[in-house]
């Protein structure tokens, strides 16, 4: 079989013999490792899956070779070649494949689903291309800090059909970020050929739609790949924005170890085998008289032994210990809690306290910045960022396109790069498009990749403003179901500012829920200290002491509970009110202690009841406070339905003091 020739030019012409050998070796390592893993997998020696990228070695090694060492790469499960060239070792890979304790993901994810952030590869996750917005965020941080780092967001052509990819590339284009989007078009998304994936002739055609330069290159020509990527990276590094590069290539095997790829015709396979990237590279190196066939054969043998030995070694390494690893969900904070050193206070309503908190955070910490829709010159839909754009400018108060997925993922990337992003969801109802990034990336980063993600997702929640079903949700229960994110929901201005500051300095993603009905509630106005102070996350508060009945509530329902408690005094029923303030982690102690005192529990929440925080608190007390209970636990919630618009319907939906009073009296 005649092999199509490749020749060096441009950037690759300047590479030394050693550099070329290094690239060649990484390609061979990838191929031989993946062949070996495939054998182990098929022989029942390996759990999970293997996703061979054999046939795409030039694309992978070329991407890595075109990047600088400090540049960051966000890719997929089929990017082992990039990871190897970026410096991830055979040992690290082997440990991860066997789910070992010392592997990059500590056994929390398997096979090629890992990254080594310190070596410049982002955590690999299965939903694709979810690392793209994260890479965008890293590029954003690079731009804000002028660090000269370029991000590469890579995926296969299949993942370019997703909203995540389009949002990411759009955001990068709009913000002119130092990032390169690479697409390894290996002809098939699992089994689906190009014709069923996109309507344009090429993937690269889409770049024009985002106002960024695009290129289509031979992904099996190592020289062309590294030349192009190097050029695109430098273009980005020099402040000229993103490039989209389509690397046309072919994977020799199926999508994964189990897939025989029978959907590939003989003609297609023959066509691509003539263009095998390693054979082409070897011919070129021999043509240049740099290396001989003996060199290649010798390396093959060496690698064969090294790979076998490393895999055997990995098998014998320590497994993770369930008791130590299974609950390792939150990064521990190691910075001091802020205490206000100012005795000055100012009377504020809740939204003023939030704005004041944001202002002081921005002023005191250069790493704090904000992203969101219309938060800049317009100062936000609810004016939470009032005065901030004028004071801090567009680099700190970033207006984004309507793309919650992209800017939430970007917050993850920026946080990984050392920033403290605070993002605003215009309404918390729009957390749904962001949820993939929150749960797949933000919530799992510390757990799986050992890197903490300090970020705050804030925005208005709650019903009662005649805003209908899509501007009114209370998302705490839905969010709380996902391990790895903290959730706070203040009910007054003091807590609002204190929790915002605590959330910003927490090393974990914190969902900060602002009930929009409380923003300007006149009777909530109070004196709020000026200067940074914190309300500790994870601690509830007894906002009213009582002896007969405990009401556990939070956010907008605290004032409803107070009203009900006042009414119940007429019946000689003394109510204790617990404001949870933090939903996750839940302050179990304050709840159980109060129930121990009153023996009666009512949970009052604005969120719908099924599988909710109320269910959780109820379950907690039934489990740990059972012997203190004197009555069935009451849950006062809306009906299990959507939030309606018509005032008469919305008023009937939201729990009120009368409902609380009659439910409690109904037990007496």
């Amino acid at each position, binding site marked *: 079989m005649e092999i199509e020739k490749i020749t060096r030019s441009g950037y690759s012409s300047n590479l030394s013999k050693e550099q070329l050998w290094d690239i060649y070796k990484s390609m061979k390592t990838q191929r031989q490792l993946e062949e070996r893993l495939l054998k182990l997998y098929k022989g029942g020696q390996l759990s999970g899956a293997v996703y061979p990228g054999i046939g795409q070695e030039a694309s992978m090694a070329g991407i890595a070779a075109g990047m600088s060492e400090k540049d960051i790469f966000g890719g997929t499960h089929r990017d082992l070649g990039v990871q190897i060239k970026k410096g991830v070792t055979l040992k690290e890979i082997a440990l991860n494949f066997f789910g070992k304790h010392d592997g990059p993901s500590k056994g929390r994810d398997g096979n090629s689903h890992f990254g080594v952030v310190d070596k410049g590869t982002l955590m690999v996750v299965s939903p694709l291309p979810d690392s793209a917005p994260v890479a965008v965020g890293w590029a954003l941080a690079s731009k804000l800090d002028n660090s000269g780092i370029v991000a590469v967001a890579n995926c296969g052509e299949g993942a370019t059909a997703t909203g995540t990819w389009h949002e990411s590339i759009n955001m990068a284009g709009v913000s002119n970020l130092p990032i390169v989007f690479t697409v390894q078009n290996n002809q098939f998304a699992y089994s689906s050929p190009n014709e069923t994936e996109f309507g344009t002739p090429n993937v690269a055609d889409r770049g024009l739609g985002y106002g960024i330069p695009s290129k289509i290159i031979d992904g099996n020509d190592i020289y062309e790949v590294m030349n192009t990527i190097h050029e695109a990276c430098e273009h980005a590094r020099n402040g000229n924005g993103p490039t989209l590069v389509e690397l046309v290539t072919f994977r020799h095997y199926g999508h994964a170890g189990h897939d025989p790829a029978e959907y590939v015709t003989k003609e297609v396979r023959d066509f691509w085998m003539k263009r095998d990237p390693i054979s082409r590279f070897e011919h070129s190196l021999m043509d240049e008289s740099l290396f001989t066939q003996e060199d290649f054969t010798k390396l093959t043998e060496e690698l064969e032994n090294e790979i076998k030995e490393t895999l055997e070694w990995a098998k014998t390494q320590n497994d993770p210990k369930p008791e130590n690893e299974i609950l390792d969900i939150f990064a521990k904070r190691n910075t001091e809690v802020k205490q206000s050193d100012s005795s000055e206070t100012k009377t504020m309503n809740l939204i003023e306290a939030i704005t004041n908190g944001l202002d002081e955070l921005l002023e005191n910490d250069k790493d704090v910045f904000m992203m969101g829709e219309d938060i800049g010159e317009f100062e936000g839909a609810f004016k939470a960022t009032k005065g901030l754009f004028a004071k801090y400018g567009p680099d700190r108060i970033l207006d984004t396109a309507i793309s919650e997925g992209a800017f939430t993922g970007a917050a993850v990337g920026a946080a990984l790069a050392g920033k403290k992003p605070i993002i605003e969801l215009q309404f918390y109802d729009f957390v749904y498009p962001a949820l993939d990034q929150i749960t797949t990336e933000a919530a799992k980063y510390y757990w799986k990749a050992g890197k903490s993600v300090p970020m705050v997702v804030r925005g208005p929640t709650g019903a009662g403003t005649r805003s209908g079903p899509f501007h009114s949700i209370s998302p705490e229960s839905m969010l709380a179901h996902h391990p790895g994110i903290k959730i706070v929901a203040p009910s007054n201005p003091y807590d609002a500012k204190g929790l915002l500051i605590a959330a910003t300095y927490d090393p974990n993603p914190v969902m900060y829920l602002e009930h929009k009905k409380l923003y300007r509630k006149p009777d909530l106005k109070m004196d709020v200290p000026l200067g940074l102070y914190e309300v500790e996350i994870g601690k509830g508060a007894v906002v009213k002491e009582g002896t*007969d009945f405990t009401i556990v509530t939070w956010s907008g329902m605290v004032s409803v509970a107070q009203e009900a408690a006042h009414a119940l005094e007429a019946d000689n029923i003394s109510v204790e009110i617990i404001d949870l303030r933090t939903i996750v982690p839940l302050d179990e102690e304050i709840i159980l202690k109060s129930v121990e005192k009153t*023996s009666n529990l009512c949970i009052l929440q604005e969120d719908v009841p099924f599988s909710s925080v109320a269910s959780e608190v109820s379950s907690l007390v039934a489990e740990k406070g*059972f*012997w*203190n*209970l*004197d*009555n069935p636990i009451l849950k006062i919630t809306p009906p299990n339905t959507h939030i309606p618009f018509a005032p008469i319907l919305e008023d009937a939906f939201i729990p009120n003091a009368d409902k609380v009073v009659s439910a409690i009296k109904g*037990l*007496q």
Partner: protein
Amino acid sequence: MSQIVTMPQLGETVTEGTVLRWLVKVGDEVKEDDPILEISTDKVDTEVPSPFAGKVTNLLVEEGETVEVGVGLLELNGNAEKEENKNNEQSNIIPEPAQTEKVTVASDESQKKDIDAIKNNQNKNLSPIVRRLAGENNIDLTLVNGSGKHGRITRKDLEIYISQNKTDIEKNVTQNTNVEDKEVLHKSESRASKIDSGEITRLRKRIAQNMVLSKQISAHVMTSVEVDYESLEISRSKFKSKFKEDNGFSLTYLPFISLATISALKEFPTVNSSFDLEAGTHTLHKHVNLGIAVDLNQEGLLVGTIKDADSYNLKGIAKKISETSTLLRSGKFGLENVSGSTFTISNNGSFNSFITSPIINQPNVAILSTESVKKRAVVITNSDGSDSIAIRHTGVLSLTWDHRVFDGSIALLFLNFIKDKLEFTDWTQELS
């Protein structure tokens, strides 16, 4: 192999019993019939004898706890550890073996107790905190007034009760820690003496409940007849000194009336029956188990039962009546002595009554009250048909009967049958 002693069925209407006091502890060796604990039920406070011999390996119920009939109380010859595991599986709480000498109750124990209480239908509306506090303070919840929905006892009710009865509760705990055996009735007596403090004794409460219950169940009607005891009195006078000498107790009217009543019951089996309207059953009893109301020196009332009373002659029945009242007053009686009556006699005449309307002893359908026998002036018809006034020993017999079960005709035929028996039987022959 382990054996479990269960809460006995203490009378027909009884569904539960309260453990008053353990008389054994884990590790004790007991013989068959050894008393192992004191229990209290609607009917009676009594000792439970061990049905088996062996080593006590687990006390399954705490003092003060009320459990359903059939619930396990004590385990003999078991593997305690195994039993614990079993409980553990059920409840995830490891119960400690109960100890007789324990003032403070560990929460684990009270929790275990509460779990047993859950099985108890009567207690199904007790909340966890009420169960726990009651267990910890050794409180009989039947004595606590419930102010909650449907009369449920709330934590507040219990706390008020505890604060009001603080001294007694402490004393109660102390009593239960006393190793020395004490008679149940003595406890009742000592409590009765404190009535001015507002506490109702267990016995009084039981009587009160039974009385009200009976009034709710039965359609009470009282009917009476006048009996001429002259002939009987002549025979009794003649034999009473010798009788006392022979038997050690006085020959009263009661044995005569009892014997006549037993005959009447055989003649009118409807009166010797049980009637369950809900179940739709009417049971005519083949034998007469005669209930005799025994006054406990004004500290309460118990009904002693003379099983198969229809098998005794006059002397026999007199002896049984005397034995029964002595036994009941001593407090050392068993369940069999106070349960299973088919008809009851209340001897009010001994307190010089003229006429009484007693309350039926459930599940009987009638109760006879004997009234005082006195010399009275009565009109008698001479053998020549002329009338004259004579001094005769007479007295009233009152019968309260359940109009649901039969009607006035049976009541009067029954009463007159007794009257005739008493007036026309040759008692001299019976006594000689």
